């Protein structure tokens, strides 16, 4: 892996908006093999290995170091990194793909508006039912870290692959941790966000992998991109890249 390995989302709005952002910077992306291909080329960065991947694969690749740089959601980066935010570097939030990772409970729980209330409800629930309250989510690590920081221990995680907001209605879980942009789906499912239950305000972001093998060639291509993104940065792009790679 000597040349820069750069991944962007392979489908949907996220793909379109990322391609538009790159084109505006002067780096147009063209797909090889038409709309359905998963290989692509990017102009203006030199010899770059351009990949189209799912947002999850991009987040994993950046954390493992199989990708140098990529566009993905901050929610996924934070959730997949075993040791937290030291395992990736956000270069720039891109202003699209915005959504919040939140804790929501049934609106009918008039006694629960904060995480501390949820803790108390969880303790009473366990005493009565001899089991813990279920929290459905696909964000296993983010949830565990946030609940621990808030001193809420009275719960069990249930991994949810989709339609998490339906879990309280079906009885699969009582509480959910999910991503939402408008809150409309939550409301439609009889749920409310806790007052202090916003775990993360996430956006699509350009992120860099400190774990990747940064050859001179990869650094040179990355610098071209950074110079265009932050032309007025007081530190030069070279310093900027070094800061991203070494800062822990």
């Amino acid at each position, binding site marked *: 892996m000597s040349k820069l390995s750069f991944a962007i989302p392979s489908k949907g709005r996220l793909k379109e908006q990322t391609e538009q952002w790159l084109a505006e910077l002067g780096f147009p992306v063209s797909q090889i093999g038409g709309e359905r291909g998963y290989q692509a080329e990017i102009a203006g960065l030199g010899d770059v290995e351009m990949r189209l991947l799912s947002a999850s694969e991009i987040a994993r690749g950046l954390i493992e170091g199989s990708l140098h740089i990529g566009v993905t959601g901050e929610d996924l980066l934070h959730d997949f990194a075993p040791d937290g935010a030291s395992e990736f570097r956000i270069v720039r939030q891109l202003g699209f793909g915005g959504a919040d990772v939140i804790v929501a*409970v*049934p*609106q*009918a*729980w*008039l*006694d*629960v*508006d*904060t*995480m*501390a*209330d949820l*803790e*108390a*409800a969880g*303790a*009473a*629930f366990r005493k*009565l*039912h*001899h*089991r*813990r309250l279920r929290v459905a989510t696909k964000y296993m690590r983010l949830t*565990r870290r946030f*609940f*621990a*920081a*808030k*001193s*809420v*221990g*009275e*719960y*069990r*995680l249930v991994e949810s692959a989709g339609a998490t907001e339906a879990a*309280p*209605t079906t*009885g699969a879980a*009582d509480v959910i941790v999910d991503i939402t942009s408008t809150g409309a789906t939550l409301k439609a499912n*009889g749920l409310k966000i806790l*007052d*202090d239950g916003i775990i993360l305000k996430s956006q699509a972001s350009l992120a860099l992998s400190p774990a990747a093998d940064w050859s001179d060639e990869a650094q040179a291509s990355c610098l071209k991109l950074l110079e265009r993104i932050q032309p007025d940065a007081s530190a030069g792009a070279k310093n900027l890249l070094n800061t991203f790679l070494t800062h822990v």
Partner: protein
Amino acid sequence: MTPEQIVEAASAVFAQTGARPVDPAYVLASDIPLELSGEAVRARLCVFTDHRGNEMVMRPDLTLPVAGMEAERLASGRNGPEAYTYAARAFRLPASPDDPMEFTQVGFERFGRESSPDEDADAFALVQAAVAACGIDNWRMVMGDLSVFPAFVDALGLHGVTASLLKRAFRQEGGVAELLAGAPSAPEVDLAHQLSASAPEAAALAFLDALRERSIPMIGTRSVTEIIEGLKAKAAAADAGGVPEDARKVLGALAGVNCSAPETAEALSGIARAHGLRGLDSVIERVTRRVEAIIDAVPRVAEAGRFRSGFGRRFTYYDGFVFETYAGGLGERQPIATGGRYDGLIAGLSGGRARASGIGGVVRPDRVIRARESVA
């Protein structure tokens, strides 16, 4: 000493007490640690899914499966004290990069004996005898007592709801400080008071009316009664004034206790005196008696031992005396020996079908070797 010699030396010390050697189940249902201790422990568990999709874990220590065996034995009608010893593999995701995922623990667990300061000291002295047999004499230790914080909370005379909240928060990562910072909300006070004044059936109807007026659907597994109880409990705690300033000062002073072992009694009784707290004599007397007994048995603790009030609060199922021993260049995340009392564990594992006091301790041979190689 080779790793085998260290395991043998420590095992011999525990075997001399007549404890029964065991090697219980390696694989446990993940419900056992997770329902017992909560999701916080998941970060360290080696979890896998069996062929039917059930979540399982590799034993994270020997205490859990050994206590499981003992709970079975007691629940099936046998009784009387029992002691087990082991030199066996345990599995945990590393907390430090240089810790292995799979390691040996040499230890013992004692059930059904008296839960007393002298028994605590005896168990500690046994662990230290094993540490000495491994050729480590330049160690330091820290101890705590997980029953001290709840006793101080009780002495503050707070509302029951607030007191339980503080006791649970003490055992969580964010601790009491995080709980006091993000205090519970006090919404719906009027509704709560209205519901408190009504008979149960009328209260349920009034609650459902309140939901209907706001177009809120009744979903989830908590019943109307549970939610009403939650509302009433919160309103009562708010009416009682939450956690007043003086109580916060007491908890702050208690959190700051970090003294050499012989100073423990004075540190704790000083706080009780300064704030005029009553009802703490028995817990302070127990801690004092334990420190004395430990120093009698292992005199080095007088210089190399400390007491910290918050020590061990994250040790999931422990509920009384707790300690860790450190040596060489290894820091506090890597004790060479640990142990403590868990009088509630058998009841927790058996769903209340059996009860017995419990105390145990282990030596970690892999860390003993690293401590012997490194110089502090």
